[in-house]
């Protein structure tokens, strides 16, 4: 594992890469320089803090502490997914339930199958991977639902007018949102190995693990992410779509459209 050491000098040189990206951004007037600087500073602070926290958690190896770390990851993921909800009522709680369920079910199955052990060094990184993928999927699904309920408002109204219940009136939008949410994970599963060599597999190979064993882990991760994004998107979408209606089974005005 010694070949994995990145010295502070090496990291300082890597900053040059950020400067290049910033230079391009400024020259082309893309307007992302503030976000890039904030992103870099946050990444450094967050990863440094989490590095020390992980070292401590792995060292003390307590179940409650590992569980707490997983809950913090899930909470933060839900906070982030909520930002993509653009005003869907109760989106934080919906996201929390969806991400918690998808993460915990996936981890439980992996632990029961013996694929991972309930140790902080395995549970915390895997929870992070699952929760982050579920978060992205749910965020995309929310965006898709917001766009569709806005653009296809008339179609939804007509379905309601024909006597559809809320599920029947929204089914096409919910299906599209779930597809949109899962698309990156499915695309990634399709191209894994031929386009990308994912982080976990690359990390293991870097660390000197036999590539065939690293691949076995990556296959597990791919299946795990497919399951997690699927469970997360389905739960989030099915809990979110009724929020577009009022108690009289009418579409609400929250998308800025007007009923008259």
């Amino acid at each position, binding site marked *: 594992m010694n070949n994995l050491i990145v010295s502070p000098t090496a990291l300082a040189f890597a900053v040059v890469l950020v400067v290049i990206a910033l230079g391009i951004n400024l020259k082309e007037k893309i307007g992302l320089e503030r976000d890039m600087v904030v992103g870099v500073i946050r990444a450094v602070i967050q990863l440094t803090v989490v590095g020390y926290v992980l070292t401590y958690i792995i060292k003390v190896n307590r179940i409650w502490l590992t569980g707490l770390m997983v809950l913090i990851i899930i909470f933060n993921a839900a906070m982030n997914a909520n930002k993509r909800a653009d005003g869907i009522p109760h989106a934080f709680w919906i996201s929390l339930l969806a991400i918690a369920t998808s993460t915990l079910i996936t981890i439980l199955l992996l632990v029961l199958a013996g694929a991972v052990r309930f140790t902080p060094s395995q549970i915390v990184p895997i929870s992070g991977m699952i929760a982050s993928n579920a978060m992205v999927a749910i965020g995309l699904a929310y965006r898709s639902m917001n766009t569709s309920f806005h653009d296809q408002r008339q*179609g939804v*109204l007509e379905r*309601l007018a024909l*006597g559809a*219940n809320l599920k029947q009136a929204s089914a096409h939008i919910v299906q599209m949102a779930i597809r949109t949410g899962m698309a990156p994970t499915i695309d990634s599963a399709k191209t894994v190995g031929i386009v990308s060599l994912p982080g976990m597999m690359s990390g293991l190979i870097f660390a000197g693990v036999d590539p065939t064993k690293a691949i076995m882990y990556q296959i597990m991760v791919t299946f795990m992410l497919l399951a997690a994004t699927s469970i997360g998107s389905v739960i989030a979408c099915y809990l979110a779509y009724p929020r577009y209606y*009022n108690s009289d089974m009418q579409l609400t005005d929250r998308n800025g459209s007007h009923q008259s």
Partner: protein
Amino acid sequence: MTEPIFDVQGLGYQNGGNRILEDMTLQVEKGANLTIAGPSGSGKSTFLRILATLLTPTQGVVKFAGKKQSTYPKPIYRQQVSYCFQQPTLFGETVRDNLKFPFEIRNQNFDESKALAALDSVELKAGMLDQPIIELSGGEKQRVALVRNLLFKPQVLLLDEISAGLDVDTKGVVHRLIQSYRENGVTVLSVTHDETEIAAADNLLTIRDGKLEVPAHE
């Protein structure tokens, strides 16, 4: 006198600060053919949408067949009080997708022969069932949408300027179909700007500035 199918008492509707309808009281008898006229923006469509439960009045009460609207499960009510849009949106890819929907929401298997007979009733050919909706003309779309509303006979048909923009022949087809439903006891309330339709109205009601100008009488 039989019980009215709609009993509207002191109906008002306000959207934000805008008063769109106020103090409307009327009764509509079962089987009536009521034509609703009035200037654009006077609240005619809002009135129909309230009758269809697509909007909830902010004042007053609407009773349907003797019971308050709110007492009915909305899907059941809307299947009986069918609202047709001025510029309908068709669903899915083909005409078939649209005609399957009324069956799906009633948990019934699609009855192709019933769908074909319904298409025939608006002079659309059987081959149109699998035609992509993007290939349909405006008049064909309106007829498919009307068929979609009428595959299962409702008690009330609410027509929101459905013949606006249609050619004379298509209007004739649509009017004949609606007439046949009227003769079978369906109550029809239609909003229109068409002078010919207004002149031929059995029973005319005018809404102006959100108020009922002439109450309907049977």
